């Protein structure tokens, strides 16, 4: 995406609206913010950039009154404040849109917007509606005020969250990774809204770890690294490469891995698979795909287009309405995770905490989740063998832990994912289904996951990589498919696929790029 050359005249005044000084916050032994200074100026869009765990969200949660800082001082509009709850922050005209929305699904857009902001006993809905429509017009946030929130796509729900903040007269808007859930076109729309807000004198904090977006939307970038401010730059004085280096402290690896040298026969085949979601709606519609051994098929798409249901059907967690999944030419029985495991399908689920791991059990117990029965002798578990198995995998996959008996919950996100990788990939799988395998991981862990997935490809596995991260798809995949509303919108060899084309497919546009 190119950077538009909009003049940024409103930057000239430079009136600080928020000044955070020496903010320190620790959680148990972990220092999340280490004497952070952060200033936000009137009418600017400021990006907070950093890896996962760099302390971006913590800092903003302190500004929004969710957490109390251990030490440090906050000034809003020059006045020293103490924010002990979001309510305090809201009265100081701060609004925050979290990654996970806080909407009431069964209520309408209008009802969600006014909730919590109506003092007094009576609610003047007519007046509220007029105010809402005015805000929608001014900032291009068009959603039907009478639509129940659950009927809206994620992008629409995000608009409601923003409207909610603006309805309460927010002048400082904090957005926590707002584009993580958006399609490219929705992102464009959001950026339009943010520019309109800045033009009216509002200040926006934009938390992200996507460099090209930061370059496109922000006036200024504050880079956090390990809880401290690593650098501050005007976007016009920097570039993506420099920011990436500031963020991770080293050059990123090459941007594209070479394609597979030896692709074999179709190993994982999906034949007109139809799957319903939890709301009993068709989420996957007669989808067919064939993935050859030694090949990575990257499945791109905005979340909520059936990827989750597709993955769950392949994992055996969800029984499809119809269609077949074939592994090595033989059909897999539906709804039988055990058979998938036995037939050597490695499965990396997108919710590693809730689906992939037993957080209250130990590392070694997690490592044998799928094959504990093979450590059986006379109905008893051979704990010594399980321990040796665990020690071997901990070494082989470099899992950082206090030992195999450590409770899984005590491990970091990257190491938890390594447990899953070790469990799934160590048994030389024939097929790998990886759903969002790097979501929420830091750069180092992401690189590690990529390395292991490529190794699995080299040893001949057929790999379905479902990811919302286009960079990841372009980095790893041999072929790229895009899922849109339960169907394959388009599929292409990576070297023939352009980012724009994939982006169009993701937005449901099915025409070739000019």
């Amino acid at each position: 995406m190119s950077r538009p050359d909009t003049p940024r005249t409103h930057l000239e005044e430079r009136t600080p609206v928020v000044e955070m000084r020496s903010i320190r916050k620790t959680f148990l032994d972990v220092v999340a913010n280490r004497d952070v200074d952060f200033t936000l100026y009137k009418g600017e869009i400021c990006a907070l950039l950093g890896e996962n765990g760099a302390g971006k969200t913590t800092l903003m949660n302190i500004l929004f009154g969710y957490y109390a800082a251990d030490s440090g001082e906050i000034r809003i509009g020059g006045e020293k404040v103490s924010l002990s709850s979001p309510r305090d922050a809201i009265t100081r005209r701060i609004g925050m849109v979290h990654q996970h929305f806080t909407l009431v699904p069964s209520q309408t857009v209008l009802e969600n917007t006014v909730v919590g902001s109506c003092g007094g006993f009576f609610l003047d809905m007519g007046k509220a509606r007029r105010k809402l429509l005015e805000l929608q017009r001014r900032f291009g946030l068009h959603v039907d005020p009478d639509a129940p929130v659950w009927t809206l796509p994620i992008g629409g729900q995000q608009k409601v969250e923003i409207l909610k903040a603006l309805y309460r007269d927010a002048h400082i808007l904090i957005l926590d990774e707002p584009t993580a859930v958006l399609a490219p076109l929705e992102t464009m729309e959001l950026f339009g809204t943010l520019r309109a807000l800045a033009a009216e004198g509002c200040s926006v904090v934009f938390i992200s770890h996507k460099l090209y977006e930061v370059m496109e939307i922000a006036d200024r970038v504050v880079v956090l690294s390990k809880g401290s401010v690593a650098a501050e730059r005007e976007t016009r004085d920097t570039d993506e490469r420099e920011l990436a280096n500031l963020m991770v402290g080293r050059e990123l690896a090459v941007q594209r891995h070479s394609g597979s040298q030896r692709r074999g026969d179709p190993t994982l085949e999906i034949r007109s698979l139809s799957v319903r979601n939890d709301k009993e709606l068709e989420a996957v519609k007669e989808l067919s795909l064939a993935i050859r051994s030694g090949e990575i098929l990257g499945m791109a798409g905005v979340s909520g287009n059936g990827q989750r249901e597709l993955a769950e059907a392949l994992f055996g967690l969800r029984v499809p309405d119809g269609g077949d999944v074939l592994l090595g030419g033989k059909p897999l029985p539906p709804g039988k995770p055990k058979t998938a495991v036995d037939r050597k399908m490695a499965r990396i689920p997108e919710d590693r905490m809730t689906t992939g791991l037993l957080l209250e059990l130990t590392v070694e117990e997690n490592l044998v989740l799928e094959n504990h029965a093979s450590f059986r002798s006379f109905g008893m578990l051979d704990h010594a063998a399980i321990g040796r198995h665990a020690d071997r995998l901990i070494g082989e996959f470099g899992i950082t832990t206090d030992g195999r008996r450590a409770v899984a919950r005590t491990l970091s996100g990257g190491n938890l994912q390594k447990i899953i990788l070790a469990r799934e990939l160590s048994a030389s799988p024939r097929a790998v289904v990886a759903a969002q395998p790097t979501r929420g991981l830091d750069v180092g862990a992401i690189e590690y996951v990529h390395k292991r997935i490529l190794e699995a490809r080299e040893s001949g596995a057929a790999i379905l990589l479902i990811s919302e991260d286009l960079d990841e798809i372009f980095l790893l995949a041999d072929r790229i498919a895009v899922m849109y509303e339960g169907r394959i919108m388009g599929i292409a060899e990576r070297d023939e696929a352009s980012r724009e084309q994939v982006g169009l497919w993701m937005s449901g546009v099915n025409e070739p790029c000019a």
Partner: protein
Amino acid sequence: MIVSKRAPLPGWIQLLVPVGAVLATLLLSAIPILIAGGDLWLSYASLFKGALGTRYNFLETCVKAAPLTFTGLAVAFAFRAKFWNIGAEGQLLAGAIAAAWVGIYAPPLPKVIVLFLVCAAGFLAGGAWATIPALLKTKYRVDDVVTTLLLNYVMWHLMGYLLFGPLQMPGSSWPRSPAVAEIARFPVLLIRSRFHLGILLALVAVLVVWFVNSKTVFGYQSRAVGVNPRAAAFGGINVNAVIMKTALLSGGLAGLAGVGEVVAIHFHLLMDISPGFGYSGIVIAMLGRLHPVGTALSAFFFSVIIVGAQSMSRLTGVPTYIAEVIQGMALIVMLIALLLTEYRVKAVRD
């Protein structure tokens, strides 16, 4: 007030928590004892003397601890797998009915075989009764707390029907079954006491549950289902089968509590065969942190309270239902202690 998650505490503190809870409970018990007009020193002295002071009293405390151990284990085993079995009381009654039935009509076989049949019948009856809510949970997602609890009343009334009908002692107008045959009774193991075979069985059950939990494939699967059923299913574990087996074992253990009460204590089936052993089992399991050994120890503690309260009542006039007050306090204290081990609570002034 701010409540925030704590870092996991070291193991030795975790072990001390129930001990601390017991001491706190005993201290807090001073309040109701004082309200009831008891002399504190005399009350505590008579409580412990009554429960532990003489050989006979000590053995009586063991006798009382046996059914409590069984129901505590039943609850602990089920709770570990997140099968919320509040129905140990009903399963105990089912076991008692089955044991009475086999015991009354005991076939002329060697005593070992008859005793085995009595236990097997009680175990299976309790287990079968527990599989009903398990089936409803796995097939139709019916809440197990509700079904296990309500089935207690169903079983109690079913027992009422039997004791006023087919199982009523001929010629009696009381709801009371005929006596179980001599051959079907648990032998007394120590002279001049009621220390019977069932107490040994309870200790064996502690070992068996510990073994199953920590050493077997089923124990692993049951723990996996307990901490995260979705991940367990993902890993290829048949979650429904695990819940069914857990229910069977849990109900069976509760059923064995009923067996002992019939063939070692009362020798008849009676409407008040259980003074709420099944419900006490919940508190006992919680106090024992769902660990089999902890459960056995906490069952013994409860038994001390129940037996001791009787002699305290005789000597000081504090009513015996002080035992139930203390049980209730033990649960509340333990729940607060568990909360404090996982969360830090800080008072903040605005």
